[in-house]
């Protein structure tokens, strides 16, 4: 699905990623853990194609295509989804309208007709209900005056509706209380199947109690320093980043 080779990235002259390798196959869930400033969020932005990052070396292959050749919206329409750590507030744009526009963009990209309004409304309500998002919230402006938890649920709603092949969750657990965390995780788990893949970026092991990863990687100073299975996350929780990442 996704293969990153020897990725070197800098921003405004400062090196952030320094030779990162990562391979994610279809149907796998990978967790990427690391301390603040290790380059976790940078990786998610680079994968989604945000401007301002210089790719100095390395390659990213996604569905056998060179990901770096694609524009941000092309990547999204190819099924790459990034759940943002800090979702953007967009005043004046209704949440449901935004979502419908996104779905239709993907359908257009795939050569399909626009989604039927009724069908869209029905499926959105269904997903929203599962995530305990009120229909009133769907009428509000996108992320404007949402609480931290509401914003994250809203991201999972978009993810569920767009049904991506490769989803990246960037610190989706930050700022969530235990109930919201459970709801968000269930949303992710419901989406999991043999055809899609997930990259769960997190600082804490907590989220991984809910979303069980197949593989766990530890990133430090722009590189993956240790990989393993779920037990690595538990070990990390016990020993802390200092011991595990830097004194291997």
């Amino acid at each position, binding site marked *: 699905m996704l293969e990153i080779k020897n990725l070197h990235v800098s921003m405004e002259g400062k090196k952030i990623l320094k030779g990162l390798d990562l391979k994610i196959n279809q149907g796998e869930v990978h967790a990427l853990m690391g301390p603040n400033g290790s380059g976790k969020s940078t990786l998610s932005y680079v994968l*989604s*194609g*945000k*401007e301002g990052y210089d790719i100095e070396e390395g390659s990213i292959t996604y569905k056998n295509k060179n990901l770096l050749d694609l*524009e*941000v*919206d092309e*990547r*999204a*329409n190819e099924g790459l*989804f*990034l759940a*943002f750590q800090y*979702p*953007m507030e*967009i*005043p*004046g*744009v209704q949440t449901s*309208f*935004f979502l419908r*526009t*996104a779905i239709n*963009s*993907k359908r257009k*990209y795939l050569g399909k007709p626009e989604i039927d309004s009724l069908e869209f409304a029905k499926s959105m309500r269904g997903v929203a209900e599962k995530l305990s998002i009120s229909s009133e919230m769907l009428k509000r*402006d996108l992320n404007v005056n949402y609480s931290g938890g509401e914003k994250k649920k809203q991201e999972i709603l*978009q993810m569920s509706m*767009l049904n991506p092949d490769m989803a990246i969750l960037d610190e989706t657990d930050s700022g969530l209380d235990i109930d919201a965390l459970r709801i968000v995780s269930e949303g992710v788990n419901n989406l999991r199947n043999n055809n899609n893949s997930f990259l769960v970026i997190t600082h804490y092991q907590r989220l991984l109690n809910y979303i069980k990863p197949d593989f766990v990687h530890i990133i430090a100073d722009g590189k993956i320093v240790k990989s393993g299975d779920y037990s690595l996350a538990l070990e990390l929780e016990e020993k802390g980043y200092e011991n595990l990442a830097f004194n291997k």
Partner: protein
Amino acid sequence: MDLANNIQNINNPVLLDYLNTKILTNDPFKKPFVENYKYAQLNKHINIDFKASTFEIPKSLLDISFEISSQPHPEVDLLETIQNWNFHNSDSIFRVGSLVNRKSIQINLDNFKENILLLDLNKIQNNIQIEASPSSSKVLIIYNANRNQEVPQSIFINSSKQSNLEIVHFDLSNKKSFLYFQSILETGSSLNFTSIQYFNNHTRNEFYASLDSECNFSLHGLNYDNKGLNDNYSFIQHLKPSSSSREIFKSIISDGAITNFQGKIYVDAIAQKTDGYQMSRSLLLDSHSKANNKPELEIYADDVKCSHGSTVSKINQDQLYYFNSRGISTEIAKIILKKAFLMEVLNSIRDTQVKELSINLIDSLLNGH
């Protein structure tokens, strides 16, 4: 200084009339005059060059309204009204310009049984005095497209006590147009004014409002796809306690256009508990266009809450990225973001039918018809 000289050098009857008049102030060339026309390029306004009208009133407008322009109305002399003006620091070329055509017609909105009324300025050559009776509640659409008359037009709005009036002003496809609106709000009245300006080539609109106690005045303006010079001036004076005014102007500027906004909130020393808010925002889409903003506060009372803000920027790049990351192309994202930018103005329209009509209009403009 140059401005004053420029004006003096132009041999124009309207202006000469202005220069000769002593009705309004003892010294019409006091500083405020020059400052009020800071960006106006008055000399350009003065060379009037109207082309014949080709634009028809959209049928949808007629569907919801009753046309009052063609009805007979009593005529009055303006002079008396003018002598009773109580405006601070507000010399205006338009009110004096209006004297050239001293005749004014009077319209009392409550003589009509319909709730939504349409006033087509192209069908009335005179100045207009609009009256809303006490406790009346009407919606008035003022339609100004492709003017073919030479005299700047003045529209006087008198909101009587406890009245609740909504005015939606469409200003479009004008080669040149100058409108002067003066609203007097009596105690407890409310006036919700929305001005939608697009496709214009050369316009200046002046909005004067004078507020008695416990009034609500709101003025929302929208500028889209104008060419040449588009100029808005507002002067909102709070003369009595406990009134509120809210003013928001949004402009999307491109293709070498110049868009000016100049607005002042004036709060008299006795107008305590005034709540005044003013915001002008411009999206400047290219670097051969120009945005000039001069929002002003002039405040003499201490127990007030007044603020203003002004921004000029391009489309928010982070928002654009968020759209892209959801698969929405830059082209479509820009349309949506432009609309979102303008929605604050459109949402201020209280009447749902007129609001829907306005939103549809902006939709069709943004999507290239």
